[in-house]
């Protein structure tokens, strides 16, 4: 019910059809990584995947936003199938903050990731955090698909509460893989460039 409502509302307000430019919407284990400018990003990425793929894709969401509030938590966990991570975990010694993501990949499911770690205000994404690199190194067989989310910062900019109707697009690019002895910084730059190339 909430699922259908959310999907209908998303289509009505922002459209957000997926454009598969560099790869096909096939059921493979993948990490979709995208630029991040709006809270709508998570919902739009989820809505852009065909139902069969959507069922096995888990958006990685920040526990400090999506984990708070009864409705938001319900939407994140039950509707979007999100994996919540603790963004401030790196400073603590409570174990690896990426552990829930490794668990998801170990189950054979796909991830939707925003490697900037926070929302930006620009068209071009900011520098990527290292999470994507660690996931790619641990699971080399998982396809890494760059995604560009167009126009969402217009629909719900950082600091606003009410989304407005603006046509948005989700562009899926050509998968890339971590080179055998590729440096972390090089890889993250290359991944970021792949997202920018779709903008």
């Amino acid at each position: 019910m909430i699922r259908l409502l959310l999907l209908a509302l998303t289509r009505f307000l922002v459209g957000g059809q997926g454009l598969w430019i560099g790869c096909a919407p096939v059921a493979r284990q993948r990490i979709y990584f995208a630029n991040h400018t709006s809270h709508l990003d998570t919902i739009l990425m989820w809505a852009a995947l065909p139902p069969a793929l959507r069922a096995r894709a888990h958006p990685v969401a920040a526990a400090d936003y999506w984990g708070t509030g009864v409705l938001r938590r319900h939407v994140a966990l039950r509707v979007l199938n999100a994996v919540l991570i603790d963004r401030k975990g790196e400073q603590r010694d409570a174990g690896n903050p990426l552990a829930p993501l490794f668990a998801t990949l170990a189950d054979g499911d796909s991830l939707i990731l925003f490697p900037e770690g926070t929302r930006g205000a620009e068209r071009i994404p900011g520098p990527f955090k290292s999470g994507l690199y660690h996931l790619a190194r641990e699971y080399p067989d998982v396809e890494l698909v760059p995604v560009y989310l167009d126009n969402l910062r217009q629909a719900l900019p950082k600091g606003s509460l009410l989304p407005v109707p603006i046509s948005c697009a989700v562009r899926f690019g050509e998968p890339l893989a971590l080179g055998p002895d590729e440096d972390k910084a090089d890889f993250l730059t290359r991944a970021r460039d792949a997202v920018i190339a779709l903008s």
Partner: protein
Amino acid sequence: MDTRMWWLFGGVAGLLLLASVTGVVLSYRVTTEAGRETVANLKARIKAWWVMVALFALAFAFGKVVTLVMFALVSFYCLREFLSLTPARPSDHGAIAAAFYLFIPLQYFLVGVEWVSMLTIAIPVYAFLLLPVLSVLRGETDDFLLRASKIQWGLMLTVFCISHAPALLILEFEDYDSAFLLFFLVTVVQLSDVLQYVFGKLYGKRKIAPGVSPSKTVEGFVGGGLAATVVGALLWWITPFSFLGAAALSFVIVISGFLGGLVLSAVKRSLGAKDWGTMIAGHGGALDRMDSVTFAAPVFFHFVRYFHT
């Protein structure tokens, strides 16, 4: 719905059937690559026409409220396309939200309750003044005039102007159902577009404004415009006008529709786009189909109101 209305929609369906058959015949006869592309686009356009005519007929069958809701949705999608092409700043978020969530429902509500004096000033006066206020409170002055005018232009064209088409329903005549007036406007304005396209493809040589709209030609405009005026005149029996009156008003619709298409094409190009969107296959966006209506509807509405009520 009046039985005559069924006949009119039957006539439109007949024309579309003829167009569909022509499309199929043409697709067997074309030989060049460019020709194939044109015919494929033509077929997509005709297919989309079937859907649009069906929706329009449905609105007529259900009456005024459904027609208003349908036009409100058309305004919504047109405004969405318009504002999607005009990058806004976060400071304009409030103004954009007001345009969508306040002024679209308000404008169509005013049409619905037949408050004519207010529906003609709500957006040109109150929205005109309120929207820049919502932006100025955020304190950003960069490109302020440019940003404010984009939202105002969008709201005027896609909501204010388009709402004048269903507003025809509230004009009152003795022994006359004004739904026919709306049918008349939409038929003449869209037929004018279609005939200008057809005449342009068949005989078009001299471009009118190559920088603005490369597909508009003198031959297309004159041939299509005259043909649409003649068809409009021949529809005089569904209007409250005489034969000559219907011809004159059709001419007004054709000219204002043409100018609307031209101006909106220039707006679109100044924003760096070729189509307003991708919503209607073959045509582009919703606003690509409504561009001539934005100019024709308010002009026709006020001409009719001035001369006939």
